[in-house]
């Protein structure tokens, strides 16, 4: 994949990932991993599938201007209830939340592959573990990294997760 196509796709991937994960685009950008993750998905499966999903999400956004409720409804029906897209979308959420790519199920691979030789479960990197959004979601910090300082644990927790 060329750098320019990754850049373009990266913008779409980031917007889609924000809607999937519940974190805003600048938070995703801040991890420095958006393009790495896009590349991870493309390597594990193929670029066409990723492009299709990004395009589908972009269409849903266009069809629901200024209508977050409608967009959520459409995303649920078109993506998170789809045998093809739900497993992939959930895997992208896992990737952002935990820094781990999980191998797609056998059935899914049969149906939409039928063969992805590079699709293996793996932690992307030690950085991806530390940047896992799960820690921000639960209002904590990655176990073993980004320590919060002496006695921080004695004080009340945050009132809400980060955006």
């Amino acid at each position: 994949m060329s750098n320019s196509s990754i850049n373009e796709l990266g913008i779409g991937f980031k917007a889609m990932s924000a809607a999937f994960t519940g974190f805003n685009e600048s938070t995703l950008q801040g991890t420095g991993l958006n393009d790495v993750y896009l590349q991870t998905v493309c390597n594990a499966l193929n670029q066409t599938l990723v492009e299709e999903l990004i395009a589908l999400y972009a269409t849903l956004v266009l069809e629901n201007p200024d209508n977050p409720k409608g967009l959520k409804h459409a995303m649920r029906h078109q993506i998170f209830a789809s045998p093809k897209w739900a497993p992939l979308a959930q895997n992208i959420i896992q990737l952002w939340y935990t820094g781990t790519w999980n191998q797609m199920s056998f059935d899914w691979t049969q149906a939409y592959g039928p063969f992805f030789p590079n699709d293996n479960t793996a932690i992307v990197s030690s950085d991806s573990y530390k940047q896992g959004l799960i820690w921000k979601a639960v209002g904590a910090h990655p176990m073993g990294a980004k320590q919060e300082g002496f006695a921080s644990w004695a004080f009340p927790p945050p009132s809400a997760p980060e955006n």
Partner: protein
Amino acid sequence: MDKDKDFDVVIVGAGISGAITANELAKKGYSVLILEAGVKKSNNYQSYLSYLDTYYNNMVKIPNSPFPNNPDAPQPLVTDAQQIVPGTPDTTGYFVQNGPQPFQSTYTRSKGGTTLHWLGTCLRMLPDDFKEKERYGTGLDWPISYEELMPYYRKAEHEIGVSACVEDQTFHGVHFEKDYVYPMKKVPQSYLDQKLGDWADGFEFQYEGESYEVDIVSTPQGRNSTPNPNYDGGKGYQPVGAVGNPDLGQRCEGNSACVPICPVQAKYNALKTLKKAVETGQVKIWSQCVVTELTYDTGNGHITGVKYKKYKNPNSGKHKEKKISAKRYVLATHAVENAKIMLASGLYSTSGLMGKNLMDHPVLLTWGLAPEKVGALRGPGSTSGIPTMRGGDFRSNFSPFRVEIGNWGWNWPDGSPFTQLNEALSTGNMFGDDLKQHMFELNQRMFRFGFLIEQQPAETNQVTIDPAYKDQLGNYRPVINYDISDHEIKGMVAAKEFTKQFFQAAGIDDQTQYNPTAPGYMYNDGNELWWQGAGHLAGTHIMGTNAKNSVVDKNQKCWDYDNLYMIGCGSMPTVSTSNPTLTMAAITFMAAEQLILDLEKESILV
């Protein structure tokens, strides 16, 4: 035979017990060789960071995950354990498990030993614990008293660098010398501890006609906090930071990964003591040397040498067999390995107790959702506990227990927060902001209790060897017979009742759920129980008052072999309800003192 080197003492094992002994000997000018089974690692911080990277990149985050598996010196893993089919030994992991219950605790065979991934809880034993048989008719009595051990407790607290508050620790008869303060002030108690303290205020546990007042008390920890200026008669205490990077780790920074690895070494590990020992110039550490047996003179019962296998590369199995001799020998490879080496050498002890009385703290976990946010997954693994049920007359009836309050949500019992993410996606059908909010609300309210149940010594719980089971180097794998007694089961039942009453009083939503296929699951009289290992291996070469009732004397010298010390938790006749390492370190200082006396006496004779 390595004739070029001449050592006063050979110590086997570079864990905390071996390190303390080496350092004490070296300070008196004796020359020491430590033979260590683990792979060669330099003392710089970079080499420690490689453990951290292994941890980040390891999918399975269990205590041994930062420490790569080494087929030349294998180690048990918590993931090995499973329920045992009667009559079929389970050979899945390093241990060969005969059951009936699986032994679930682990240790680390790397330089620095198991303190690389311990939690660092440093409670003293209760004075009553030393005379359990006399007082309650259960367990065994120690050949030493709490009072006799007090000066050595101080040395151990100094060496490990314990943070605690004396006033908080004076319960169940525990006492301190006038004016004693711990090296550092207590580690701040977590927000969760404070909340539980509020909710439990005035709560009393009612059990079998008795009423027990419940207090939430700060836990002494081997982790750097604020130095106490009043320590050592006003001299204060200088915290010890990371080995090779001493500015780091001067205070706990809240990395919340103490088990399996503290990134900054604010938590004590034995590399710190090893470094001091090596800096004396008197101590050599030879890594990649797996000790297999001791040789001895059948005439005078003296140990004559240590046989070991030196390997080049942990994966090849290639090695050279070697032997070395010294004036004195110390086995410090931890309970299971110590006994194994003796059995492999044909040294069974007159008492017949070699390898017997293997103990642990079966840990029963219970967990729930607090009525409001308690800030899970922040800070050290545990900063407080409940000592109420550690001591009392009920001990003649059921096992006492300590309650550990866990700061990391349900991470131990169920792998939170990852499990909740999987559930939210797969069955919760969540995404986007709903997912994030759900994870936040749920995880923020999570907490767990851990009940460390005292296990009684039983000769049938034991380590043996069998030529049918060997590792890649041809060394014996430990064969383990293990069971949980009725006394302990009764303790667990009491622990569950404690949970019920505490949760009712505090308004906690009980979420405890045990999996009937998990190792350690039991169903007893309508009670579901589930226990796991604590990593608190003890027994296997217990100390006592004579050669018939014990393997070692109170100074951990073998009754049968005058120039051999077997040190570590294996010497403890009972495990009590405190995590064992502080007490073990204290008796190690005692052993080192005696060993030095032996050597001094010998030099006068010569």
